[in-house]
């Protein structure tokens, strides 16, 4: 059954081609059928592959499928080859399955668009999923880079989907350009790898890196930093996180797809995939952890102040990916992948739930203008609460608790971990709980401020229910030592990624229990703070906001810690200034001079063009005299 692997990325690409070529002439029904159907088939094949992979794992938990040779230049011959191992299996499962649910949901969400735009939407979405599948299934880094750039392109196309509004186009360009900074770093990293190993095959590189590059050698550190740069750009981590909040300009299903299944998790995947390089460069591992910790706190504070429900979720994604980076930084590879999976479930759920609310309230995204939605859309409310509980990591019943707890535990006890990172994560958990409860209280409780416009149909509700179930039970496949020790997921992943090397043995179960209780208390405490500040006594926050310091702090957080302002001042303004100064283009003067000179010669020689035959013959004769004289006498 594993031979069907090539169909997993091929089907979305096929869907894209069909929709791109014939989408203009299709009815909405057919476009949706193609777009959703292709992904549904892909998801189905993925499940079949997953079952057969788990039932009878191939040798070394690694299945390679070489489709054809891509290029062959001077001994450098990357192939179009797919690679299936536990990590990529988890990723393709999430991508196809969650992607399918998001597509299904879009059928109704996007119904107001006319048929051409509708087809365009599904074409881009299919291409997006296809590119992401290519990225995670790639056997070599060149193919991975192709998927990487394809994902970047699709994010541009989808964020700017409603391109008639210039603001959306600007957001799309920002996403494209900011991630491009990271992509360039990654490309440099790939160049270094090609120079060092003459190959981009992941397996070969992972095998050779420890043999060729000693720990902390300059080459390995630089390569790791460059790959980290790419990961940071794609995954919207500090300092390249500024594009993600603006990316909310796209339709809500796009946001769900970007945040849950594709795009932002690419960075996590890249670091997990190239873990050997990072293990050889412990300094960079530390940087990864610090970036994760800083990002999760900064994004958390920004999330508290947002009034646009989608931007709260955007900052929460940045923050949650921060957790994954933290996990990667402490060497907890499987925990990062586990959190990715749970996060994909609940973040897709939250986005789709938020989308349902936005859809129902006629594109109202401001939480302060919502309220009381609980009674209008009970199903959306309950599923959204389940997702929020998972995000806030409420203990025992939610998937988010297990995955986040695993990260915090390994940050505390792992051999690469540190207490500082642990406390940053814990603090981040508190903030997460606060902004999550704020979001739920502002949106669903209180009195109704807007009227119901549309009612989400079953196509939108079914994905919500499935995702709600998954984000709850997803956590039970990895139970910590205190709760029966059932590390199914870690065992599966650790076939390919090294175990975090935690001090499980000598730290003892007591420490683990203590840490879990602390985490649970923090989560519940955060929710309680949110309840107090935004439901019970909202005037406290309002009063604080009125004070000058509160006002400036609010603004500071609202605009994402002023990163945009810093980049604007540091990069955009100087370049803008140079462009203004150089309006007449100094370098162009050289070319103008050449043109001027040429024109001068032209005038000079056109003067000799008399149109008289004998004049020309005279010229020839004179030239002959000169030439013969030179040949004969010189």
């Amino acid at each position, binding site marked *: 059954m594993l031979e069907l692997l090539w169909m997993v990325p091929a089907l979305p690409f096929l869907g894209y081609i069909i929709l791109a070529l014939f989408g203009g002439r299709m009815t909405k029904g057919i476009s949706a059928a193609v777009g959703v159907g292709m992904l549904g088939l892909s998801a189905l094949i993925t499940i079949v592959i997953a079952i057969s992979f788990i039932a009878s794992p191939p040798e070394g938990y690694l299945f390679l499928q070489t489709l054809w040779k891509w290029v062959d230049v001077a001994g450098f011959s990357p192939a179009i080859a797919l690679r299936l191992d536990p990590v990529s299996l988890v990723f393709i499962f999430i991508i196809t399955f969650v992607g399918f649910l998001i597509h299904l949901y879009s059928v109704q969400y996007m119904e107001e668009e006319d048929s051409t735009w509708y087809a365009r939407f599904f074409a881009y979405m299919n291409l997006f999923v296809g590119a992401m599948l290519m990225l995670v299934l790639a056997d070599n880094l060149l193919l991975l880079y192709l998927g990487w750039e394809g994902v970047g392109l699709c994010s541009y196309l989808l964020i700017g989907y409603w391109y008639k509004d210039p603001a959306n186009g600007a957001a799309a360009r920002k996403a494209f350009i900011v991630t491009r900074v990271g992509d360039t770093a990654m490309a440099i990293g790939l160049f270094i790898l090609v120079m060092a190993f003459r190959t981009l095959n992941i397996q070969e590189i992972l095998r050779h890196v420890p043999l060729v590059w000693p720990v902390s050698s300059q080459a390995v550190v630089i390569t790791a930093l460059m790959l980290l740069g790419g990961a940071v750009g794609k995954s919207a981590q500090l300092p390249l996180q500024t594009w993600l909040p603006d990316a909310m300009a796209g339709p809500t299903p796009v946001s769900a797809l970007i945040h849950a299944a594709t795009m932002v998790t690419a960075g996590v995947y890249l670091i997990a995939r190239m873990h050997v390089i990072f293990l050889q460069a412990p300094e960079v591992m530390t940087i990864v952890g610090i970036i994760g910790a800083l990002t999760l706190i900064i994004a958390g504070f920004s999330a508290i102040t947002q009034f646009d429900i989608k931007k709260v979720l955007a900052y929460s994604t940045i923050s949650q990916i921060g957790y994954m980076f933290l996990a990667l930084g402490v060497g907890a590879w499987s925990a990062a992948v586990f959190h990715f999976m749970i996060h994909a479930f609940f973040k897709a759920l939250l986005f789709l739930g938020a989308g349902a609310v936005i859809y129902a309230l006629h594109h109202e995204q401001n939480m302060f203008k919502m309220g009381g939605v609980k009674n209008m859309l009970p199903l959306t409310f309950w599923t959204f609460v389940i997702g929020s509980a998972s995000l806030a990591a409420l203990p025992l019943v939610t998937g988010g608790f297990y995955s986040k707890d695993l990260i915090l535990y390994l940050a505390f006890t792992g051999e690469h971990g540190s207490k500082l990172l642990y406390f940053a994560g814990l603090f981040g958990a508190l903030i997460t709980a606060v902004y999550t409860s704020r979001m739920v209280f502002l949106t669903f409780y209180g009195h109704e401020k807007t009227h119901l416009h549309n009612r989400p149909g079953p196509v939108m509700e079914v994905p919500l229910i499935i995702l709600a179930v998954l984000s709850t039970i997803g956590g039970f496949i990895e139970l910590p030592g205190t709760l029966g020790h059932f590390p199914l997921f870690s065992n599966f992943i650790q076939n390919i990624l090294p175990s975090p090397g935690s001090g499980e043995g000598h730290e003892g179960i007591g420490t683990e229990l203590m840490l879990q209780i602390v985490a649970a208390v923090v989560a519940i405490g955060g929710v309680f703070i949110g309840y107090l500040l935004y439901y019970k006594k909202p005037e406290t926050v309002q009063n604080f906001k009125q004070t000058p310091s509160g006002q400036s702090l609010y603004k500071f957080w609202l605009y994402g810690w002023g990163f945009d302002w810093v980049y604007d001042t540091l990069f955009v303004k100087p370049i803008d200034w140079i462009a203004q100064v150089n309006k007449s283009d100094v370098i162009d003067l050289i070319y103008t001079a050449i043109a001027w000179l040429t024109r001068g010669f032209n005038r000079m020689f056109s003067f000799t063009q008399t149109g008289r035959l004998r004049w020309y013959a005279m010229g020839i*004769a004179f030239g002959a005299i000169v030439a*013969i*004289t030179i040949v004969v006498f010189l």
Partner: protein
Amino acid sequence: MNALFYIASVVAIAATIMVITRLNSIHALLYLIVSLLSVAVIFFLLGAPFVAALEVIVYAGAIMVLFVFVVMMLNLGPQTVEQESRWFNPKIWIGPAALSAILIAEFIYVLISHGRQNLDTRMINPKQVGFSLFSTYLLGVELASMLLLAGIIGAYHLGRRKEAVFHRYFRRPDALYERLHPKEENKIDENGLKAGDKPLSKTNVSGMKQKKSERGEL
């Protein structure tokens, strides 16, 4: 044999000088024929009877006859000789003569400085020439044939009198006027057709006939 060469040379040079100084073009052509004939004699002396014959037949014969035809066709009157004498004065030819003298001097210097090279004047018969032409130079023959074809087509194309081509809108001399000032019966109806619309008017037909007779003159 030696003497023959030098006599023929002197004749050739003298005839050529006469060609470039004549005022009457027919006279010049006759001198040119003399020059070509003397070159043919030199070819014969050099042991190349085949090209000597070709020189006489093709050059002095066919090509020069072509010239004569054209000069006759142009039908130049006696006033052209006066015109020529105005055009051809020492002020004009002294410059080219100086240039050519320099070139001649250079060539002679080059030729002399390389020492004497005796000629082998054994006859090369037409068979050898033909063999070489159709084996080694076969491609050249093909190219020459194409060149001659192009020459025939080009001469025909250039020589024929062009018909004046009008847009159908202006076929008839009064068509434009009619369009602009439609008479009652000529008003264009909804189908774009005129009441008395005919493809060709009388004037047009007679015009074409006239053109044909003009062409017949040539």
